[in-house]
């Protein structure tokens, strides 16, 4: 009787999930599956697709642009997984524990860049990085560091770091929010007990804060690795992959290949690779976390 009622409840509840599931199926799962199929074809917008098996994937091995784009993707993944996470953690701890005035306003200010579109931010930073009296160069000159001035977007040595710095600024606020939520769950009495035992700020950070935020750190890293793989909007609004492909990223290369160059099959295979990288990295981080606990 109970089992029958459970089945009836299950069916009833499932009906509520159906609309969302249908949308997910139609606009994500089916296109993603179709995209995967396309990746095994030589397909352009002019001729009928021809099945080529793994040829698109084999082409990647000798494709220098793919190698550059992959390297840049790894750069952004590592950058986003470290600096904004660390910065967000430090700022969250200061805001949570230092009892500063205007904490709420500061939280908003730090979080704001995350919700502003990358295109708007990219256009603003063109003025910041401009070699023609841009804000950064003006400030450097003002504080006597004029010799550090560069053509930030126009120099292959600095372009990717210039874009990366914008990404750090954009995402650390979101990391801060994740850690603030985690800190609110941390028992305050642990810190009091630690103080009584003579633990200083550093000891409290290492022995209380970090262990209590382990799950949040894992989540923050995974989220920001995914953000690091989705820098297309920022790159297009700033350097557009230049100068000389020194900031070309995977998703930009995939879109360029598929739609500007009409090579849909190869473009599809690039997006499959992006998905696989995201999956592998996320699983790796979760596995490391599980091993530690």
């Amino acid at each position: 009787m109970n089992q029958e009622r459970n089945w009836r409840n299950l069916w009833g509840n499932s009906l509520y999930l159906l609309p969302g599931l249908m949308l997910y199926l139609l606009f994500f799962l089916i296109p993603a599956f179709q995209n995967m199929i396309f990746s095994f074809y030589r397909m352009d917008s002019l001729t009928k697709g021809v099945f080529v098996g793994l040829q698109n994937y084999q082409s990647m091995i000798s494709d220098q642009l793919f190698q550059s784009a992959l390297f840049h993707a790894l750069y952004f993944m590592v950058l986003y997984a470290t600096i904004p996470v660390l910065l967000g953690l430090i700022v969250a701890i200061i805001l949570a524990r230092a009892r500063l005035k205007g904490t709420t306003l500061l939280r908003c200010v730090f979080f704001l860049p995350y919700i502003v579109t990358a295109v708007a931010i990219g256009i603003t930073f063109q003025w910041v990085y401009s070699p023609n009296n841009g804000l950064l160069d003006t400030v450097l000159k003002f504080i006597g560091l004029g010799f550090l001035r560069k053509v930030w977007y126009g120099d292959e040595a600095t372009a990717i770091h210039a874009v990366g710095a914008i990404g750090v600024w954009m995402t650390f606020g979101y990391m801060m929010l994740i850690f603030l939520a985690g800190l609110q769950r941390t028992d305050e009495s642990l810190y009091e007990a630690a103080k009584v035992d003579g633990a200083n700020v550093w000891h409290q950070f290492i022995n209380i804060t970090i262990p209590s935020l382990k799950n949040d750190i894992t989540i923050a890293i995974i989220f920001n690795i995914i953000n690091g793989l989705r820098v297309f909007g920022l790159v297009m609004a700033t350097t557009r992959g230049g100068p000389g492909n020194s900031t070309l990223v995977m998703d930009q290369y995939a879109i360029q290949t598929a739609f500007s160059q009409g090579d849909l099959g190869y473009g599809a295979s690039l997006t499959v690779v992006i998905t696989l990288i995201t999956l592998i990295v996320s699983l790796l981080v979760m596995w490391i976390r599980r091993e530690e606990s």
Partner: protein
Amino acid sequence: MKRFLWIILACLVLVTPTFGAASTKLLVWWMPDTAETLKAAVKTYNEQHPNVNITYEVKTFDDLKTTLRLTLTNNEGPDITQSNQGAQDMGLLVKDGSIIPLDKYYHKYGWNKLFGDALIMPNRFNKDTMKQASGPIFGVSESAEFGLIFYNKDLFAKAGIKETPKTFEEFEADMALLKSKGITPMAYGDSDQCGRGIHWFEILLGNYAPQKRFADLTFDLNNKASYGKVELAAAAKFQEWCKKGYFMDGFLGISSNDAQKMFCAGQAAMYKEGSWGTTDIFKDSKATKISLGMFLLPTKYGITFGAPGPSITIARKCKNPDLAADFLNYLVNDTKYHAQNNELPIAKGDLSMADPAYKELCQLAASTYAKNSIGYYFDWATPTMFNTLNAGLQRLTGQKITPEEFVKMVNDDFAKAHAKAKQ
């Protein structure tokens, strides 16, 4: 009563204009850049032909790229539409059979005499080889664009340059003189990879190669194109000028839009741009009170980048292609509305509504078309050439690669495209 009705019917048939029983409604799809010209032309044409009803919808370039093909294959959408020349756009419409050849109208209306070969070639398409510039003509352009140099007359006077250069050597000497006087010779920005570097490369190649070379490299009809000595010379010259500081400082970190604004603000003596930029440049320089002039870069062969404007095509679904062609002929020949909106017509005609700067532009255009000096756009050559040239030229002008390495990059691109074409 019956007789009366028959008389009325007979009168109606008699007064029905030339386009008779065929449909007299046409829908036009048009891009925003020259929409004002189309609007004026449609209004006048409809007034002159009371039984004709031409309507239009403005579609952005991206809209056309994504919706036009599907719409036409479903027998819906416009009767007349603009389309970008090239395999990926007009080529697909030809392949689908969605647009009709216009060769007979070229003869009927004399467009084959109005346009030189250079302006007709891009509107040809061969369905069998999927190559542009060969085969029947599928479109006509009512405007054209070409590259020229805008200059600041005050800065020229300040440097002691009394007249615009007549030879390539004089142009180089003027740039050196401007630089020595502390004036930035040339405004330039290439951070946004919009093809401004490609335009410079082409305009410099005009000093080393005739128009046929430009056509061969752009259309690659025999799948054998590659860069050689002359392209190497042009690349070396481009790199040399960058090294000498003839282009504004930090140009790789400046966007093309910003470079234009900086020129209009008087921060450089010259600026190279396509004729499409004339309206904005003159508007901005009026605001900053700069006295502007223009000239064609004097090179040995006088070739400049440029092309006929977007192709205007007639859809197969159009029930009255003769009417559509008549309207196209009106558009092509009526220069009045082009003049009013500072848009560059291909035909010569009434420029009475134009301001003096526009008239000067038209004179430069006419001389360019008459000498068949249009060099197209090199990025048309292969699907990846736009990216290859943009990236390569950024590296070349940033002194990161040699001219030889640049030429190799481009030839690798050609080789890949040729190999793919053989598959």
